[in-house]
């Protein structure tokens, strides 16, 4: 299998710079790094990819069994790292991808040398003293809302999913379908993401780690940022003056500054 094709891997930036691998979160695709890439490209080689089921990945490679755990996604990340022959790369993961990065760094320590976790949450569900922010019923409601968007979504996505290069009008479709995600695959990813509990994996992180959080983020509240920071020894926590779950989109300048400073400190 061609991994680069499967995950629609693209690279840009400075070819002999250290590689920064950008991983999108649930609900989006590699396009969400559009405002981040220019800030990194000057000094780094930048690699981007789509998880299977998202963006322009190979939908035929989707395996509901494999992607029912974050480990399956982490295996994909390791395969992408191997296909690119990365060594000591910096993995930047948004949202659930931050945790996928933790698992991937443990699976392939020689390939991932540092982590940037953008709005991470090791567990979205409340559990005793731990306040992930959501009850089980909330998550079930999210899954139901994905279901209700099924019809509209699938009909709008269909031409993109077919991906017919002989029909140039689909170029138009692609630009209007930012964050395209196959609805059935999105449901699998949503379930895997929001029911995951990776709190015990945080202690395994041995590489330099930067945690970025927003001042107001429903999905990853500040208490979760503090928990993650405390659980990863030596990690650095930066609270960005941003609202929402996507600071790299809502406050790109501050986000980029925090990441480039961290990269500079790595040397």
């Amino acid at each position, binding site marked *: 299998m061609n991994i680069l094709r499967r995950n629609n891997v693209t690279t840009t930036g400075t070819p002999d710079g250290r590689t920064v691998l950008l991983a999108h979160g649930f609900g*989006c695709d590699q396009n969400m790094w559009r405002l981040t890439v220019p800030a990194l490209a000057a000094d780094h080689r930048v690699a981007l990819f789509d998880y299977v089921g998202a963006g322009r990945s190979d939908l035929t490679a989707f395996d509901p069994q494999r992607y029912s755990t974050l480990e399956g996604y982490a295996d994909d990340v390791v395969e992408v790292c191997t296909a690119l022959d990365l060594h000591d790369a910096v993995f930047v993961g948004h*949202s659930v991808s931050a945790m996928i990065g933790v698992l991937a760094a443990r699976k392939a320590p020689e390939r991932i040398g540092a982590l940037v976790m953008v709005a991470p949450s090791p567990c979205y569900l409340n559990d005793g003293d731990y306040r992930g922010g959501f009850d089980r019923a909330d998550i079930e*409601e999210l899954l139901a809302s994905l279901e209700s968007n099924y019809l509209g979504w699938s009909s709008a996505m269909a031409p993109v999913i077919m991906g017919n290069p002989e029909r140039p009008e689909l170029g138009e479709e692609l630009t209007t379908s930012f964050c395209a995600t196959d609805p059935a695959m999105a449901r699998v990813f949503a379930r895997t993401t929001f029911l995951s509990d990776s709190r015990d994996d945080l202690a395994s992180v041995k590489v330099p780690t930067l945690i970025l959080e927003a001042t107001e983020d429903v999905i990853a509240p500040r208490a979760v940022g503090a928990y993650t920071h405390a659980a990863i020894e030596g990690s650095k926590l930066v609270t960005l003056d941003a609202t929402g779950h996507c600071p790299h989109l809502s406050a790109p300048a501050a986000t980029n500054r925090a990441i480039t400073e961290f990269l500079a400190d790595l040397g």
Partner: protein
Amino acid sequence: MIVTDSTEEVYETAPSGHLSTTMDGTIVKINATLLGWLGLTRDAVIGRMRFADLLTIGGRLYNETHLAPSLRMQGAVSGIALELKRDDGGRFPVLVSSVVKYDETGEPVLIRTTVFDAQIRRAYEEELLRGRQVAEEARQQADLARHEAEIAHRQAEADRAQLQDALSVLQQALLPERLPDVPGLETASYYHTASAIQLGGDFYDLFAVDQERWGFFLGDVCGKGPAAAAVTSLARYTLRAAALHDPGSALAALNALLNERFATGDPRYCTAVFGTLRPDPDTGQVAVEFASGGHPPPLLIRAGGTADFVHTTDGTLLGILPSGEFPPTQLLLEPGDTLLLYTDGLTEARVDEDEFYGEQALRTLALRYAGAPASELVEALSEVLTSFGVPLADDTALLALRATP
């Protein structure tokens, strides 16, 4: 009278909800229609609530992970199905479209959102969704059924293959594995069963009778399958055992046996040519004596370039009558002459829907092989048989006996 309308009134009382938010989602403007749907007052909303606060928690997650980033990246989204939370705790299904307003430097400043009442549409969609789920279940059941059918089919194929193996072993038992070497004689044979899963009813053999004589026979049992195979087996062993007698007596013995065994129950008949060969090592000639029980006449192909059917006198179908006369016919094969025995599978093979291969075509072809080795004649005939457009309906056996030139 000229009817006019005010823009402000259109905004406030339009049949759709309208709101504007800053980029962090804080609501700065909202119309009366939407406030009515929500059951909220303007004061409670403006500057105090964010767009996400109007959504159910699932909608909020969806907004954060998909909607807001999409809006940031492409400046507009449309037709997103969401549910609003009403002040009384109820849910209000809507379709949402938003556009981003940018300032003159290209910085995003506002998000303008239009909200459509989707209660009727939602009910309709839920119907469609249910229909889709039912269809998916039906498809899964169909897949399962097909899967089971495939397993059954594979089992049937395996059974068939096993049966075919067993039958071909049995078939081999009814035919000589290979023809013996007869001094002064050159032989060739061909056997084709019309059906791979049915035992053929044709049979032939060539064997030593004593120091000087060789016996041969070729026959055709009426019918196919196990019952026919039983007759084939009986015929074969009876003729072998009776070979010490003259050909006429041997056939008479088989006739009596078949008639006796099958007259009462399921009548079975066969046709056969039975004969003996006596090669003369001095002259190279082979003396042939044979009799026929209702069998198609053998074809005598002279090395000199003639081919003629050797019609025997009388000779009824074997097994029909309690007793029968099978008068012998004698002939002498000169070196290079061939005697061809065949079953009617050859002459009655269909060239096409309307035409049989026939005796005349056989004779014409045999003429071309006058003086040729027996194996070449048999091979030419087998090629003719396989070249027909219509699959062979009957079994076919060929046995060519040629005096070595």
